[in-house]
């Protein structure tokens, strides 16, 4: 039994401190996915917190045969898709320029010049992601930041491997066209 399994078992008994360790371990992947999906740090923080709360209240339904990270990211991406749908229903524009946020910081300690370049790169990547449909965005984020296999992406997205391949194919095609146009 590894440390993660111990925390999970304790969290199932209602031990919040143990669940806190899991939050600490998975906060970056969960927040990063939410940010890549939503393109907004405030909403990403809210979505990441909500994903952890949902995970905590549904710990009994977690199947230990699967990786906890996959389950956690699946909850996160489903919640983000819900937010995007609601956002559409409220007719809010997602093309508005994103405000700078302190969350736009990588884990590395960078100098001012490198930090500016890093911010520029993050902004460019996010702009490109925002131009994609949510399910394409989801597939690209899971492929690049989590290094997931097609099978793992399919598990998180609750779809088939061929659908994942197709989404990645189309997403990359769109990104390449946008890149060539720029």
């Amino acid at each position, binding site marked *: 039994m590894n440390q993660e399994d111990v925390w999970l078992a304790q969290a199932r008994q*209602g031990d*919040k401190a143990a*669940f*806190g360790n899991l*939050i*600490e371990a998975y*906060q*970056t*992947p969960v*927040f*990063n996915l939410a*940010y890549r999906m939503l393109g907004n740090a405030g909403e*990403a*923080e809210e979505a*990441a*917190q909500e994903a*952890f*709360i949902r995970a*905590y*209240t549904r710990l009994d339904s977690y199947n230990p045969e699967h990786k906890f990270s996959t389950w956690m990211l699946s909850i996160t991406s489903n919640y983000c898709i819900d937010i995007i749908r609601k956002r559409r229903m409220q007719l809010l524009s997602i093309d508005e320029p994103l405000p700078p946020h*302190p*969350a*736009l*910081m*990588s*884990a*590395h300690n960078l100098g001012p010049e490198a930090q500016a370049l*890093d911010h520029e*790169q*993050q902004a*460019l*990547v996010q702009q*490109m992601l925002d131009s994609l449909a949510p399910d394409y965005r989801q597939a*690209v984020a899971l*492929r*690049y*930041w989590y290094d997931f296999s*097609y099978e793992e992406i399919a598990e998180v997205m609750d779809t088939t491997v061929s659908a994942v*391949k197709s989404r*990645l*194919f189309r997403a*990359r*095609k769109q*990104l*390449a*066209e946008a*890149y*060539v146009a720029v």
Partner: protein
Amino acid sequence: MEHEEAYSLMMMDLDEGLDTRQADQLDRHLILCMACAREWQALQSIHQLFLHTPALSPVAGFTQRTLARLPEGRQRVWFLGLVYLSLLLSGVLPVIGLGWLALRFGPALFEPAIWGGLAQAAGQLGQLLVTLLSALWLGLEGLATYASQHPLLWVYLLLLTAVVVLWGGIYRQLVLVNAPIRS
């Protein structure tokens, strides 16, 4: 080789890698097709850009903020348990009650004497209603005759109405208008 086939090989190269034969096929196509070559260059640039863009972390204190929002697990389980139990009982108890009543009084309903008695009781109830309605009608008729013979009664009723309306207006002005407004 078709463009679509070349594109599939490009995707494979990005995700899984190509064997020597497939790589040769793609290279031969890219030498001949400038459009695909440009697209391949764009795809590789994007691939590298995304690969080298670090993951973003939340602002410090995320764990504490999230823990503060976590519900009390055990309370929640008890609460949900009670909700489910009450829902179950609200559905099951009436069914059990109806079943018991059917078993207890069901056989008696099939006896002819019961139905005869019920019909007789319904007839008597109907007669009673008819008598009550006729009495009410007669009373109203008498009241109307009395009112038409005594016009002063109308004046008295009008005065009474005016006094009620007047006092109602005064009450509204004094009490309701000065009442504090709830935020």
